[in-house]
């Protein structure tokens, strides 16, 4: 038996004994205040203890006794021999339950009805009448059971057996329950004698684009003809997410529709009531409470004392969120309040903090998101103060730390499996314990990974900073006045990514000035301001860091690009003619194509667009280009936030998982066989009005077998490489996941076509594909 439960059995026996003797004394000497107090206190303590376990009938009955004794103590109610009788019966009932609990660890069948009978008897004494009897049992959690639809009533009527109580279930799965391996719908499937099941969204559905399929957004309400204990067994691993109550049949149709008009019954049927269900919501709640404390009246001394404890609590909360750096501002607000003898400044400061955390994005608690970190070198040491010194860390040590975090991610992923095993083979709380441990380790690992990654993050301004000088010099040399605007320099990216960005960025800015922006007289003739504009913007989006370089220059003439490519024999004339302007623009990424008529002094140093593309792709990113002749060109570099962790789409082929960096994945499709054209050995298909070449991953990797005869469509991954899209036939799509990519070593290092390996959550080895090498 769980030691806590054992403790409960011992303590409740003691309390019941104490209550029994107090009741005897009270009956002998009704005027003695000590006896009623002792009795009251014993029941009060017992109620607190029962509340820790799932035994609502017990808690409710003790509460009813407590209410009656309160009335006796206040003189509202006389202790008649009748009332004493009921109280003795109450104590006996409780003692009986304790015996049964000790033997079976669950409340006996019929406990609800027993409790209700005694509650009723007590209420008669209190003069509250009996009408609200059943209603008490059905607190708001189960109010829906009183408002069944016609069809549900019919189902109920058909399934009810005379004299058998119904069991009502209110199951609100935790949003992250999928991660611990729960399938709420499957729990509901296992409810025996299910008569009514309602599956409801917790809130309005968001846009599919922002819908998180891994966060449980459904809740379940059910009625079953099976006994409560049987239903409880189904949900025994999620006791904190479910409430189960027994409803007497007669309580169902009539009395439920008539909502209790009598004194509102307390919400006493609830067990394990989530006082504050979401720990994340605690932060703003506790902060607001501190503001309230500061507003309370009292002597000057009391108020000063409250300021002291409130300031300490607020400081602790900042530390708990990893924001100790903001401590100084809090101290300042406290000092101001102390000096003025007015809690106002401190209260306003804390109210601001509360506002900040509750307004914070999706996960306000995660320090990583919460802390606006001044962008200092080497990140977020929580002891940091303004003006702290940067700490230099050997990158290799950091990489080792990251690798260890990666190992931990893999090691922890075995836990849900163990929890499942434990759940299947043993009936005790081991599975739940493992799940809880997993959730904690999972959270800590996520934070740790984030913290390590953040150590490597630097602001993009690092690569922006040299640009104004460069532009100024070039613009003077070329005689082209130019305004350079930079935005988003505070956006952070991994140091390695910034290193990769440096060279391409310089090149693209040079290109814009040299080939994009026209000389002033041409601009004037075209009705444009003489001064050209180059805008650089950095920001984060779903895929990573985006850097945009846009100019308002001449734009790129798609026809000129076509001609050039044909002249240089980079493409067949008829294929060039068949390209849309948008596609033709992509040709500038081909090696050897230079669009300016003569190789200029500035840009023609062998670093072409192909080099830009190659270095960006090597870092797992992509380049996009858009241009309107006469209006300008815009180029986007999309790079992952970090090279340490790669977000991959996992596909399955020949029974093995393969990963593709999501930055290269444009779409996942099912292409019907009849839409696949095949010419000699080359296959193609139409995607968004373009004909794309189609490759088969099995063939590229020399894997055995084919995709399987008999099916009517192929799973096709549309990937983008340097503006060129290709289709890739795979067996099936799996999840997207973050992996720590390791370079190929040993025998594997001779394999071509792979960027590295990673270990998946289930322990399988994932090969991450380098498409460019394969095609």
């Amino acid at each position, binding site marked *: 038996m769980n030691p806590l439960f054992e403790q409960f059995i011992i303590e409740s026996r003691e309390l019941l004994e104490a209550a029994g003797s107090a009741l005897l004394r009270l009956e002998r000497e009704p005027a003695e205040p000590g006896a009623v107090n002792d009795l009251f206190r014993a029941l009060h303590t017992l109620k607190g203890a029962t509340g820790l376990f799932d035994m609502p009938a017990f808690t409710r009955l003790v509460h009813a006794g407590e209410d009656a004794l309160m009335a006796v103590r206040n003189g509202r109610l006389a202790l008649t021999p009748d009332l004493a009788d009921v109280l003795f019966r109450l104590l006996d009932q409780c003692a009986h339950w304790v015996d049964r609990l000790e033997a079976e660890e669950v409340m006996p069948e019929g406990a609800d009805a027993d409790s209700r009978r005694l509650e009723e008897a007590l209420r008669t004494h209190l003069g509250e009448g009996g009408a609200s009897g059943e209603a008490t049992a059905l607190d708001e959690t189960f109010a829906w059971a009183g408002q069944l639809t016609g069809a549900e009533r019919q189902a109920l009527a058909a399934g009810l057996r005379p004299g058998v109580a119904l069991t009502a279930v209110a199951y609100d799965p935790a949003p992250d329950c999928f991660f611990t391996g729960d399938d709420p719908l499957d729990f509901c499937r296992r409810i025996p004698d299910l008569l009514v099941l309602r599956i409801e969204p917790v809130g309005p559905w968001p846009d599919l684009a922002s819908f998180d399929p891994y966060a449980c957004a459904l809740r379940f309400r059910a009625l079953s003809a099976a006994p409560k204990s049987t239903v409880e067994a189904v949900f025994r691993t999620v006791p904190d997410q479910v409430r189960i109550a027994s409803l007497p049949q007669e309580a169902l149709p009539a009395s439920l529709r008539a909502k209790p008009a009598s004194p509102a019954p307390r919400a006493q049927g609830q067990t394990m*009531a989530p006082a504050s269900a979401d*720990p994340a919501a605690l932060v703003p709640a506790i902060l607001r409470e501190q503001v309230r404390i500061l507003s309370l009246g009292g002597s000057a001394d009391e108020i000063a004392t409250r300021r002291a404890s409130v300031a300490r609590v607020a400081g602790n909360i900042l*530390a*708990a969120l990893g924001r100790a750096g903001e401590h100084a501002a809090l101290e300042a607000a406290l000092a101001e309040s102390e000096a003025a003898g007015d809690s106002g400044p401190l209260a306003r400061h804390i109210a601001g903090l509360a506002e900040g955390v509750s307004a914070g994005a999706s996960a306000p608690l995660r320090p990583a998101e919460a802390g606006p970190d001044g962008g200092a070198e080497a990140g977020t040491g929580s*002891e940091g103060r303004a003006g702290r010194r940067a700490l230099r860390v050997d990158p290799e040590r950091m990489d080792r730390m990251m690798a260890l975090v990666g190992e931990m991610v893999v090691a922890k992923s075995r836990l849900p499996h163990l929890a499942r095993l434990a759940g299947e083979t043993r009936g005790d709380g081991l599975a739940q314990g493992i799940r809880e441990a997993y959730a904690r380790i999972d959270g800590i690992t996520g934070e740790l990974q984030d913290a390590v990654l953040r150590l490597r993050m630097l602001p993009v301004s690092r690569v922006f900073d040299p640009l104004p000088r460069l532009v100024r010099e070039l613009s003077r040399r070329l005689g082209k006045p130019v305004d350079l605007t930079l935005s988003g320099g505070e956006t952070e990216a991994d140091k390695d990514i910034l290193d990769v960005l440096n060279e391409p960025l310089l090149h693209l800015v040079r290109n814009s000035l040299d080939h994009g922006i026209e000389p002033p007289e041409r601009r004037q003739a075209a009705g444009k301001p003489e001064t050209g504009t180059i805008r650089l913007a950095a920001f984060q989006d779903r895929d990573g860091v985006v850097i945009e370089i846009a100019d308002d220059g001449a734009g790129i003439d798609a026809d000129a690009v076509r001609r050039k490519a044909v002249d240089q024999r980079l493409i067949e004339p008829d294929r060039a003619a068949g390209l849309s302007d948008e596609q033709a623009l992509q040709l500038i990424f081909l090696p050897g194509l230079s669009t300016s008529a003569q190789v200029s002094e500035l840009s023609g140093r062998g670093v072409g667009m192909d080099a830009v593309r190659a270095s960006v792709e090597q870092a797992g990113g992509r380049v996009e280009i858009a241009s309107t002749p006469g209006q300008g060109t815009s180029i986007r570099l999309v790079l992952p936030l970090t090279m340490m962790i790669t977000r991959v789409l996992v596909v399955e082929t020949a029974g093995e998982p393969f990963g593709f960096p999501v930055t290269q994945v444009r779409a996942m499709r099912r292409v019907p066989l009849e839409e696949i054209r095949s010419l000699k050995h080359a296959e193609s298909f139409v995607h968004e009005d373009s004909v794309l070449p189609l490759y088969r991953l099995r063939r590229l990797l020399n894997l055995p077998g084919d995709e399987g005869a008999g099916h009517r469509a192929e799973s096709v991954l549309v990937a983008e490489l340097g503006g060129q899209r290709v289709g890739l036939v795979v067996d099936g799509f799996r999840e997207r996941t973050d992996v720590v990519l390791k370079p190929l070593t040993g025998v594997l290092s001779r394999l071509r076509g792979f960027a590295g390996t990673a270990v998946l959550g289930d322990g399988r080895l994932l090969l991450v594909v380098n498409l460019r090498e394969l095609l």
Partner: protein
Amino acid sequence: MSETLVPVRVLVVDDAVTVRAYTRQVLTADGFAVEEAVNGIEGLERALAHPPDLLIVDINMVKMDGYTMLRVLRQEPSLRNVPAMMISTEAKDSDREQALLAGANWYFVKPVRPDALTAAARLLTGRLLVVPASGGDA
């Protein structure tokens, strides 16, 4: 790092053995060092002898209730700013206000969920809060 190697000390004052055992079990599992006192007077004595990092106090107790205990405690210079949490079965706002007036920083209605209890204890004592990831990653 704010996660110190010296355990954070919590003093639990409650006259119900089971509730104390529950609180101890939950907080010890999360790495807190838990001490217990069975009533307000013993709570005061212990807190004075060795000021804790956090007080968790029940309201209804024989021999000095939680309100009185906190009021007295707040007058001690060494204890005036110790974070204090009150826990009671009463859910009325007037009870909550009573607790805050007496010197509590936070009030929970019993029974408190384990995750809420540890999260609050961490926040009130400045131990790094770790929340299970709830992102959309597999």
